[in-house]
């Protein structure tokens, strides 16, 4: 029986999911892979082969709770919860925005919220048009920064090239970020938006 000295980290908030196995004491990723959210479990299986770590070596699961794509987030959270339950190990939620910052200290992390908006941290978590982000002279990272490059650069922001690794959410940073900031969140998606049907009802209460 091996010591439970590894953590499984995964994030499916964006179109490029990330999975990693992090060694707990050294806080180092022993393996990390990218995945399509829909192929998450297959990539997790590859991950354990690559890392040569047994599932019994896991002492916990860390999962990115967004904000991000709703369906993908639910795939990640349902998978992570099941794994933690089956292995009887604790599970922790971490903000995907925190993982982005962990990979690009000092930057403004932006996640594409579609419909002309980004998810960001601005005192609190918000969903806003990129025009409303205070970015002058700052570095912006994340798929939201790439999607709204023109709007952000026009207002004085620096956005690295599309293939810059700092735009990618990395599960390894998720696990490290969880330890560093100690910001453990409930294991539920940070939706930030009500379902469309609710919003329509609010606007048209008679409907």
């Amino acid at each position, binding site marked *: 029986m091996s010591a439970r000295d590894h953590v499984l980290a995964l994030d499916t908030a964006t179109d490029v999911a990330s999975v990693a196995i992090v060694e707990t004491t050294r806080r180092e990723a022993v393996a990390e892979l990218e995945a399509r959210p*829909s192929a998450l479990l297959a990539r997790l299986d590859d991950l354990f082969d690559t890392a040569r770590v047994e599932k019994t070596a896991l002492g916990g699961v860390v999962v990115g709770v967004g904000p991000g794509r709703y369906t993908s987030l639910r795939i990640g959270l349902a998978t992570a919860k*099941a794994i933690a339950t089956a292995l009887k190990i604790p599970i922790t939620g971490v903000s995907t925005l925190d993982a982005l910052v962990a990979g690009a200290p000092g930057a403004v992390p932006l996640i594409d919220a579609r419909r002309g908006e980004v998810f960001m941290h601005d005192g609190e978590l918000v969903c806003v048009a990129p025009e409303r982000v205070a970015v002058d002279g700052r570095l912006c990272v994340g798929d939201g920064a790439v999607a709204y490059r023109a709007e952000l650069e026009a207002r004085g922001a620096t956005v690295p090239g599309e293939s810059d690794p700092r735009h990618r959410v990395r599960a390894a940073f998720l696990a490290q970020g969880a330890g560093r900031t100690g910001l453990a969140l409930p294991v539920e998606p940070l939706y930030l938006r009500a379902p469309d049907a609710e919003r329509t009802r609010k606007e048209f209460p008679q409907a």
Partner: protein
Amino acid sequence: MSELILGLETSCDETAAALITADGAVLSNVISSQADLHARFGGVVPEVASRRHLELVEPVVSEALVEAEATLSDVAKIGVTQGPGLVGALLVGLSYAKGLSWAAQIPLAPVDHLHGHVASLFLGDDALEPPFLCLLASGGHTLVLVVNDHAGFEVVGGTRDDAAGEAFDKGARLLGLGYPGGPALDRLARTGDPSTHTFPIARVDGLDFSFSGVKTALLYAVRELDETALAERRADLAASYELAIVDALLQRIEQAAEHTHMDTIAVVGGVAANSAFRARLATLGARVAPLPLCTDNGAMIASAARYAPNVSKAGYLAVDAYSSR
């Protein structure tokens, strides 16, 4: 205990999990309905349903295990609905089941929801043995099936437009009964006189159904009435409307039995819960799914999984949800 089958269902607005034994005894059948949540929208809202499934999937599975006095190590197979249904909703149950299978090394069997409805007949002491002719009448489907073995079926008839359950739901809405309409219409119809109104039963070729005409006929009947008249006649309209649908279903299934030379008739799906329908089926000597197993549940999925091939790890890792057959 160690050869149990866990069934998980999240295709629409019920989060459901159940444990059955290897010989089909139901040990637990936990169903968390979201009906109340969707009622104010007048129907199932996919994003609302998906959110709720994620909240409920874990507590529902663990409650099913507790009620069965079992743990995951007693589970020899996990059956999960792969489709048809709302893809976002299906993905919650499917991802959870795949995660459990992979981490606990339990074989997985992806199940077709419609096969699940048929497999509700294979549970308990009084399990039905194929071959038989089966009517599947639910919220999304109305199918005449020839069931020759436990593992599948052949479709010999279907609906050209609305499903029977949908006809009940739409009729209920026209009568102002809210959502979900089928059970409400059933209750109201018991107090009404089914001979007061005649609603036409559409005649279509082959062994198919059509329910859009009967719904339109009800719409016209309702339109002719003012508030007070409608209040007076509501129960009679419900009873007459229900009779028209039940007659159409019975007529077709008897024709199908003749046509396919099958002696045993069985009915499954949410509409099989209808009390007037059940009474008529009893006089006919037809089999009908046990009441708690008519609408969506985990036991029927576990039952289908019992007869479905296990998918190897390499195969199930990539299993995806599908919205329609």
